[in-house]
């Protein structure tokens, strides 16, 4: 089975500094993969390059059979790879429902003139979008807040909206950048359950960066460890937990549960 | 006609006008570098400076040097007050700050129209006669402009390099975040940067007042030139502005020798647009923020 995401020899330099160096890994459909490493290890840079926010300095990225390196983020999303952001980012003046609606428009394919003319094809496509938005509202538990203005909600909810917007783009693979940051242990456990539901019931593969070790160990099948831009280990949670190189470089430091 | 003479004259004229562009551009860059605001009223401060000098000389009979100093002082204070009263609310909102400078420019220009009327006023020239450097003619009045410009620039250099306030200002221009992390206080830097920036424009206006005429509409061309210099030199780069203004002066002067000024302006704008598209960081500036 070909991997859903295949990253090969990926590098990204800033001036002379290698933020990511020669990163290679594969993610298969249906996997939940964690990307961990100390601060400054290049995890967010790797995300930015994979999602298209930054062009790579070297290497290639294959997603669902397509070479996506160098594509703009909006293009990458239309191929089915979406990402969320570390700090809660929403459309502050729009309602939660509107926020998701804007995400769902990613794959909306009706030409502008047909939109204005309100053709049948347009109306059908729009109905589908609204149904998808409703579905995502349910999955993420945001349905009670659908008419609240996003900017006024608590940080934890805003983060969830961020994830929901990513889901609304109907991705095959969702990249999550520190989704648990700022969540208390209870919210964190809830979030882990959500991730598993997304994979089990909605066939969305997940790759996420996280400092919250408990969350990573409990939800991921595969963990990739990045230190100073380079992959130093990859394997199951047990393998990684017991890997001496990883312990020395990263886990040896007493990581408390709140990252 | 002697080619070397033409080039020589163009070069000299170009350097002279380049110094003026430099005064405008440094002030503009200072304002942008400190406040991240494109000051659409910058040309009107040039005009303000010209009028202050005009009033000092013709109504108060002050000597020219004193008039120039007074212009600097008055505009510095005015700029400080304007920043605190008007622009302070826009710190952090560059777009709205920029649009508010449009309003500011309208107020200044129409204020001048109300006070002085639209007709050009003339000031007595600072000096008469011409000095010749070989075949090249240098009007004395322009030489005065050169001398004063160089003096102002030298003082500015000393201030920016060797005084606490000046060094702080430079730090803010170079990197606002690092500067504030080092504890440089923005509530002093913003009005100082704006005040000095527009005072420099005013000095340029004062220096040129005896050479050209003084009227409320003289601000638009200097504004345009400041834009161009700052684009070519890199927004926020003072050395870039220095290089670009002298280059602009010389190139413009040379081009005007061989083609109409409208034609040379068109080529200039075309070049500037291309520059913005392919190299927005300018000749020396940092990459577009």
């Amino acid at each position, binding site marked *: 089975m070909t991997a859903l995401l295949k990253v090969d020899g990926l590098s990204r330099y800033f001036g002379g500094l290698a933020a990511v160096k020669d990163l290679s890994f594969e993610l298969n459909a249906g996997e939940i993969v964690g990307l961990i490493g100390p601060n400054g290890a290049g995890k967010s840079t790797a995300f930015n390059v994979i*999602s298209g*926010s930054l062009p790579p300095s070297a290497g290639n990225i294959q997603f669902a059979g397509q070479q996506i390196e160098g594509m703009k*983020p*909006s*293009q990458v999303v239309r191929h089915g790879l*979406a990402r969320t*952001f570390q700090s809660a*980012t929403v*459309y*502050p*003046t*729009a*309602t939660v429902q*509107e926020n998701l*609606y*804007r995400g769902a*428009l990613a794959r909306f394919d009706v030409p*502008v003139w047909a*939109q*204005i003319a309100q053709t049948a094809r*347009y109306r059908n496509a*729009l109905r589908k979008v609204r149904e998808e938005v409703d579905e995502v509202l349910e999955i993420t538990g945001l349905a009670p807040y659908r008419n*609240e*203005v*996003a900017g006024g909600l608590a940080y934890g909810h805003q983060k969830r909206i961020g994830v929901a*917007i990513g889901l609304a*783009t109907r991705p095959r693979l969702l990249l999550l950048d520190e989704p648990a940051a700022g969540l208390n242990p209870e919210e964190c456990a809830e979030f882990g359950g959500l991730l598993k539901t997304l994979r089990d019931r909605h066939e969305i593969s997940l790759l996420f960066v996280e400092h919250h070790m408990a969350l990573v160990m409990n939800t991921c099948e595969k963990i990739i460890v990045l230190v100073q831009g380079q992959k130093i280990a990859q394997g199951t949670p047990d393998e990684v937990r017991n890997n001496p190189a990883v312990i020395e470089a990263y886990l040896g430091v007493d990581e408390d549960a709140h990252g | 006609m002697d080619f070397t003479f033409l080039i020589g004259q163009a070069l000299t004229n170009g350097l002279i006008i380049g110094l003026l562009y430099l005064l405008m551009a440094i002030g503009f860059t200072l304002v942008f570098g400190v406040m991240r605001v*494109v000051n659409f009223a910058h040309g009107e401060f040039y005009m303000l400076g010209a009028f202050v000098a005009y009033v000092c000389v013709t109504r108060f009979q002050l000597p020219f040097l004193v008039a120039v100093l007074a212009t600097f002082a008055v505009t510095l204070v005015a700029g400080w007050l304007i920043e605190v009263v*008007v622009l302070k*609310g826009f710190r952090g909102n*560059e*777009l*709205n700050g*920029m*649009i*508010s400078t*449009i*309003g*500011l*420019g*309208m*107020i200044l220009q*129409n204020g001048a129209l*109300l006070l002085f009327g639209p007709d050009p006023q003339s000031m007595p020239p600072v000096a008469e006669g011409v000095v010749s450097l070989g075949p090249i003619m240098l009007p004395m009045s322009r030489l005065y402009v050169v001398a004063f410009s160089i003096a102002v620039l030298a003082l500015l250099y000393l201030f920016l390099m060797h005084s606490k306030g000046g060094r702080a200002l430079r730090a803010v221009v170079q990197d606002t975040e690092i500067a504030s992390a080092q504890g440089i206080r923005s509530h002093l830097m913003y009005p100082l940067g704006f005040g000095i920036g527009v005072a420099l424009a005013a000095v340029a206006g004062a220096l040129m007042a005896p050479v050209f005429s003084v009227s409320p509409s003289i601000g*638009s061309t200097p504004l345009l030139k400041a*834009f*161009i210099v700052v*684009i070519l030199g890199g927004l926020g780069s003072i050395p870039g502005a220095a290089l670009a203004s002298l280059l602009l002066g010389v190139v413009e002067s040379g081009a005007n020798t061989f083609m*109409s000024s*409208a034609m040379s*302006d*068109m080529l200039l*704008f*075309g070049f*500037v*647009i291309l520059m*913005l*598209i392919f190299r*927005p960081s300018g000749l020396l500036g940092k990459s*577009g923020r």
Partner: protein
Amino acid sequence: MHASSTAPTMKPRAPDPGAGHPQAHWRRWLPGLLVLFALPLFTSSPFYMHLAVLVCLNIILVNGLSLLSRTGQLSFCHAAFMGMGAYASVMATTQWHAPFLLSVALGVAVAAAVAYLLGSVILRLQGVYFVLVTFCFGELFRLILLEGGSHTGGANGIANIPPASMFGFAFDTKTSFYVLAAVCAFASIVLLIALFRTPQGTALDSVGDNQELAEASGISIQRTQLFAFVLGSAMAGFAGALLAHYLGFVSPESFNQHISVAAIVMLVIGGRASVLGPILGALIMTPLPELFRSAIETQNILYGITLILVLKFLPGGLVGIATKLRGKGGKA
């Protein structure tokens, strides 16, 4: 590295949560607007009719400007596209004796085509850099008109432009042209209302509200802004073509920086986030210079002060007053 992916967006600060989207309330004001449009027909003063025509053309102009503004970019060469539409249509009418409708279509097409070419290259510049390049382009266009020799009439422009006419009927009276202008202005308003109810319109607001998020959730910043720039500039061209055939002459100074700035002022004072904003801005700011010709300097000073006050206390423009009064009410 593209400047567009890292530069901060220049959209005005979002209003406090709960402010809501005023555009959803067009049902409330559109009927009132129809009545307003009908009013000038009851006046016999050519002066007021003239003002009414100008208001309508400004509505079209500022509506066009608002499209790009909603995506977070501000164009300082909007008047240049108005000029392109004007000059292209006038050249067609006077030199090739083309029928009015065709000339206007040509004017719009020229403005749209140039906007497409220019926008493709400059829209990747964000914020300040975009402002500066459009400012320079505006100046460049004015110089091209000045130096256009016999094609553009140079500084004197082109005069003796035949009045607008359709199917044999000439709109050569102020009243008849007003009807034409009002219909066109109303059409531009309806177009915008319809547009902002569609996903394409939502994309415009998304890019303006949170550029990074929009791009990361599948909305192409480049394509969205280009769409807004082309459509907005085409509307400016349309307004220019109409203006030229109303006044009967065009000159480079009719389409200079002052006009671009005036459009921006109208937009900001009216309100940048709503379809009602350009209408209010045009309605309020167009008649004033004409009504107070004797005190134009004082008036301009008041404009400047109003602009600054609006920016400070009502960044959403006059439309923002209605929003504040209405209170909570998000857009579903």
